[in-house]
């Protein structure tokens, strides 16, 4: 296990070191100490390494991640895992706004709650939140899957495209063009796999699926009131 003390080494050295690992590196286990809420920790990684951050992080932790598995042993600030391409990011605590924003692949797991705009503009990422999510989550979400084991706030899935949303608890309100949909066997299977990968023992059968009504896909004056 390699250890980097962020306070001691500084952000540039930390990211440069982690980014320079290639796909067959022997240094596969990394521990980052003293993150102290710093921004842009472990961004732009592109190797199958495990990075554990001992403490809470600021904005954009794990941004644009490829391949790496990153664990935040604390809570994460805004935009954690933004535009993630692949790999896995696990937040042991809570996540702030825009968790997984525009993510294109990989899995983001939030063991606590996520704030507003979780999964905004998501483009293929899978997100599993063990707790609740805030308002405007999955706004303009294009593809991928958002799983919420708790409750969702206002305007879930507003202006949704093809992303799939599963919520176990209550949904305060649905956004424009987001509707409740039937759970078919393939959705149960998808959910089972994601919950298992995310370390949740929730039962897929207890979730409700939401998705796009696809009524706003083409301009129609009769839909103007929906915006």
């Amino acid at each position, binding site marked *: 296990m390699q250890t980097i003390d962020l306070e001691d080494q500084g952000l540039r050295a930390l990211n440069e070191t982690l980014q320079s690992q290639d796909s067959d590196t022997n240094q596969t286990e990394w521990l980052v100490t003293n993150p102290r809420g710093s921004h842009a920790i472990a961004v*732009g990684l592109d190797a199958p390494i495990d990075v554990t951050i001992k403490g809470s992080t600021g904005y*954009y932790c794990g941004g644009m991640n*490829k391949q790496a598995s990153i664990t935040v042993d604390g809570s994460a600030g805004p935009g954690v895992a933004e535009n993630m391409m692949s790999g896995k990011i696990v937040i042991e605590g809570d996540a702030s706004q825009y968790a997984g924003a525009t993510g294109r692949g990989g899995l983001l797991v939030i063991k606590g709650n996520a704030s507003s705009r979780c999964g905004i503009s998501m483009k293929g990422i899978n997100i599993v939140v063990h707790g609740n999510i805030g308002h405007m989550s999955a706004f303009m979400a294009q593809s991928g899957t958002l799983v919420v084991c708790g409750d969702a706030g206002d305007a879930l899935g507003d202006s949704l495209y093809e992303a799939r949303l599963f919520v176990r608890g209550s949904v305060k309100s649905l956004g424009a063009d987001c509707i409740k949909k039937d759970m078919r066997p393939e959705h149960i299977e998808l959910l089972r796999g994601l919950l298992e990968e995310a370390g949740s023992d929730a039962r897929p059968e207890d979730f409700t699926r939401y998705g796009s009504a696809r009524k706003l*896909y083409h301009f129609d*004056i009769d839909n103007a009131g929906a915006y």
Partner: protein
Amino acid sequence: MDDHQKNNPPRTMPPRTMPIQSATFSNPVNAEIRRAAATGIYDIRGGGAKRRVPHFDDLLFLGASMSRYPLEGYREKCETSVTLGSRFAKKPIHLDIPITVAGMSFGALSGPAKEALGRGATMAGTSTTTGDGGMTEEERGHSEKLIYQYLPSRYGMNPDDLRRADAIEVVVGQGAKPGGGGMLLGQKISDRVADMRDLPPGIDQRSACRHPDWTGPDDLEIKILELREITGWEKPIYVKVGGARPYFDTTLAVKAGADVVVVDGMQGGTAATQDVFIENVGQPTLACIRPAVKALQDLGMHREVQLIVSGGVRSGADVAKALALGADAVSIGSAAMIAIGDNDPRWEDDYNALGTTAGAYDDWHEGNDPAGITTQDPALMARLDPVEGGRRLRNYLKVMTLEAQTIARACGKNHVHNLEPEDLCALTIEAAAMAGVPLAGTSWIPGSGSF
């Protein structure tokens, strides 16, 4: 003449009122009312503001005289190079000419059109820019210097393209629609475009108007930090704003850590936006330059953070005027499209068939561009030869540069950046006030000093 005619001389018709068109309800206005009434949806179109606003045409250079001496036109050197991104980036961009090609998306434009822009810009020693649709091989392969736009939609965004870009442009807004997002209507969402944007083919796509993971200048500072960390602090980071509040927008962009600020006035184009937005939101390019320069000067950052001005730049005279007002470079979009063949009269019959005429065609969102530029239709796309298009753009950029040099030499300047507001006068009070230069024949700069 018979008796009847004698007794009944012809009565002259009383003079009639001449038909007078209303200036308020003009024919174009009435046509728009009828169009709105018939369709129930606002007009969407491409391009920038078509209305007349104070512009570079309203400025003149004074030239050399008793107190200024000129440089020899064909003998004495007049430099045109510019370096962008010298503030923080490890690898600033060096351009031979102070004219760059602005961001236009693949999707809005065809692949061959993007290739033509890349070829032309490269041959002229300057950069070109991606757009809302992500980075294509056509443009990366043919652009020696490529600026990668970081937009609210983040279509196709990925760290590999960030790293193979030569600079990153964080787009906050654009002149045609400060505060608005892009649109790409279903006709142009081909399978390839849809795939690059992670969207279903054929839908009407509305791009976000706000970035999904930051909301203000304090957040932007952190976002820029993240982008620099991902790219090893190599790339210059531009921040592009629409011409809304240029003094404050420039100030905040600099505070957020921009290497370069791009200010785009209302004549700057768009692929598809509501006409009401294009014509009624934002300030003319001319009105944006001095406030942006003042912001840089007040921060002690003029020339350290470079300013690129865009929106309606058409000639070397426009370039020289923008630089004289304090810009480091200009950017062209609409003019570059025209150079490679947009709105060319050779397609007049096709324009007529679409109910328009060469020069006025702006329904770029419909994907039927006779010139093959703003389309994803393979047959139309084939009308543009990217090699020939690139050559034409190269020629045009060279001409603009020669023109700017001609003016700079006449003003006695050995670098186009040495042009200054004192080299200019204005033809109208409005232009004098906006550009902060005296009205021709007077020493009056409206808005500075008292009457």
